[in-house]
């Protein structure tokens, strides 16, 4: 199972309100028709963190091995999408993709 905090994009000490807000924002951005897997992951993450009790239970009882994507998301989170450089586009158009 993916780290629900990372799926929702909330801090480790997020409270009920912050978690609900992140969940609502997430499902608005990724409704099931747009990204069903992401939607499901958001639902599962919200269920795992919805209440203080659930968050403690997750901390205590989740023994699933971490996924590399969790390590990646945690250590080097996604930033704002950027426009690629003209050089990069030029290289691709020249067929250079080494």
């Amino acid at each position, binding site marked *: 199972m993916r780290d629900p905090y990372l799926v929702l994009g909330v801090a480790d000490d997020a409270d009920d309100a912050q978690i609900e807000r992140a969940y609502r924002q997430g499902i608005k951005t990724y409704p099931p028709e747009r990204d069903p897997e992401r939607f499901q992951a958001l639902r599962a993450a919200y269920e795992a963190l919805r209440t203080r009790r659930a968050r403690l239970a997750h901390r205590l*009882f989740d023994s699933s*091995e971490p996924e590399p994507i969790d390590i990646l998301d945690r250590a*080097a989170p996604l*930033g704002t999408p950027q426009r*690629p450089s003209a050089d990069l586009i030029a290289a*691709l*158009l*020249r*067929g250079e993709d080494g």
Partner: protein
Amino acid sequence: MTQKQKRRMSRGSSADSDALSTQALATRAREALERGDFRSAIADYKRLSKQDPSDASRSGLATAYAGRARELAAKGMLKEALVMWENRAALDPELPMDPDQCALLMRLGRLDPLLERLENPQTPPALAERIRGLLAARILSGDWGLAERIHSEDPLHRHAQPARAALDAYCAGDDTGVREALGRIPFRSPYRDWSLILKALLTLAEDPSDTRRQLDRIPDHSAFAPFRQAAELALLPEPVFMERCRSLGRNRMRLACSLRGWPAERISLWEEIHRLGETPKPEALVRLLQKLRKQLGEHWARQRQMRILAHHLPEGERWLKSAGASRITLIESMLLAAWRAELGRDPWEIQERWSDLAIQLKLDLGLDHQHPSNPEAELILALVLRRADQLMDLLAIERTPAGEMSELQEFVCQELEQSLKWDPEDLGTHLRLIRFYRHAGLVKEARWFLDAASKRWPEDRQVLMEAMETALASNAFKKAAGLAKRILAVDPINTDVRERLVEAHLAHARKQVMKSRFDLADKELKAAGEWARGEQAREQIDLLSGLIAALEHPKMGAQVLSEIARRLGSGLSAQISLTLAVGMIGMSAKQALSWAGLERPVTPDRADLLAGLDRLRRHLDAGRGFGYGMESLLSKLLKGAPWKELSRGELESVCETLKRARFDQLRGELARLALKRWRKAPIFLLHAFEAKYPHGCWDPMSRDLLDLELAIQTARDAGDTRTSLRIQETLERSRPFPLGPSPFEDPFDLEDEGHHPHALDLAFGSGGSPEEMLEALRRLGLEKFLDLMGFPPHVKRDLREVARSMGEDAFFEGMIEDLTQSDGPFGLPAPKPRRKRRK
């Protein structure tokens, strides 16, 4: 000779080719072409062209050259690929240039042949179009001088400027500039695909589905396809993208990463993870987590390391050490043990490991529920105490015979009760205990928790439901009806409560019948009739009305009962219905059957038998009791039933129903009957045993006991874990040696479990000194000692707590003192069967 040379030899100039006829050679060459073995095809077609030059062999050779050229280009052997294309062109100067050859020339920067083709009016329009696209891509890739070499009226030249302006604006984030520049590129332009991609990318953030639609319009052979493919990667879900990244070229990946918002450090970390392989080894992840612990957060990284270790002990401990991480603490090791127990799915083990952790947490944190000081730690403790039941549903009433409670369930109840001291606000645990205790027949315990819940949540519907059920279980029917009405006032379509209310009125009516207060019974039946909706409830009301009528006016009542019996089919099912109804008002079944005209024994068919048994099951489901002698009455009715026509599953279900009804004689007979058909079937052995020994078998040499022990393995082999666990529990209850191993096991045959074979013997059996005994117990360790002693789990748990609080050595010393001073086997009293009673 190298392998490659050998292959060439075998393909090109082998003697067998010489020996082949022209036709056979042509067939072989065609087959090689069809299976994509272009090198062999080239060799065979060359030979064929020499033997019998023809258009077909030339055409075949050209196709083989083209195939090989594409193969080489895909491998990045561009110059070698070009040689193949040139070989192909040499076969026939009139052969049109292949678009892939054009693309290759472009990649190699050999533009002159392309420009020549473009200017040549003989060039097919489709090819010219492709060449224009390739040149357009080349111009936008930075070769701005190329546009100058093209005629100024050519769209390649004319549209180059706006296409370039759009690129600059896009890279600068100027969306308006992009739209304005693209507006100057007409639909029919060599830059059309470029324009489509940029338009698609402008909608990426707001409407990715539109982006996808627009990108889909660009064909795979487009000169801009690599750019389109990179853009498409920006639309993938993150995990899919990460997976795809593994097979992507560097530039395509970097472009997609930019569009997705991957900063440079994320890309480099991804590359580091990528180097760990498709499924990184757990050891490597432990190392990576240790290395990145500052970025990840110390606590997060450590927690993930523990989660890895939970699946990879004991070797994982070594990984932790070699990664430079600190050693596993006591609490961590206990948490790991609990997680590992969960992987094993043994309910006892799971409960014990979490209970151990709870004890340790309580000690470490110095918690005292009478002086709460650390709400989070207290809640953690409560959750830990509830975990085993939450995970394994150990108090599931559906799987527990009414009125029974296994030792494990008793243990679980204790832990749940304790959890409420730390977290009294948990309604779910209150409800769980109320339901379970009521089901186990411990109404006093159920009521204690019900009172606590009613104080905290007086208007909660679930609490009211439980209050109603508990009232029913205590025969407080009036109270139950009042509670049901309160629930229905706020939830009028609650069918469960409606049914329970009808049942409460019916039960109250029966009570009045038994007091000969027929008028009051009628009143209750009327009230039940007002709420009754289902056929079954109506049937119960009719039967009781009929019986009251017969008691008051036998002649008239007999008519009513006959009519009801007719409606019920006048068979076994009707007999059972009436017998059960009669049993609940303490009346003679013989008389009632006679009134209803059902006194004669019937030979039921399969359907009637199943319907009758279903009535019995529903009777139990409704929580109704049985009158005295009901088993013998039903046994008579069921005599001659076609049991052999029932399937194994149906017979299993009947045995379960009879177990719930506590009709052990009938259940035993049926189980033995089933064992004749399914020899040594564990489930029927269990039913036969339990029916024969309802209070346990105390004969250690009993053959039945041995058969049941052997059935555990049979059930396990068949993958029937549930039956094997049930047998184990039954054996636990029946074992004549509560403090020792079974007489059928060698008590010192412990090597399989890694025990010291004679450790207990060394400690207690050889008359050694207390020091020698202590040394032997130290070697054995606390857990193995407790296992070998065969203590029941609750004793083990208490002893563990004692050992923890006083230290293992002191504990062992105390044990030795106690054990050596006693007369009996280890001098310990046998644990008494415990039945909870709240004071």
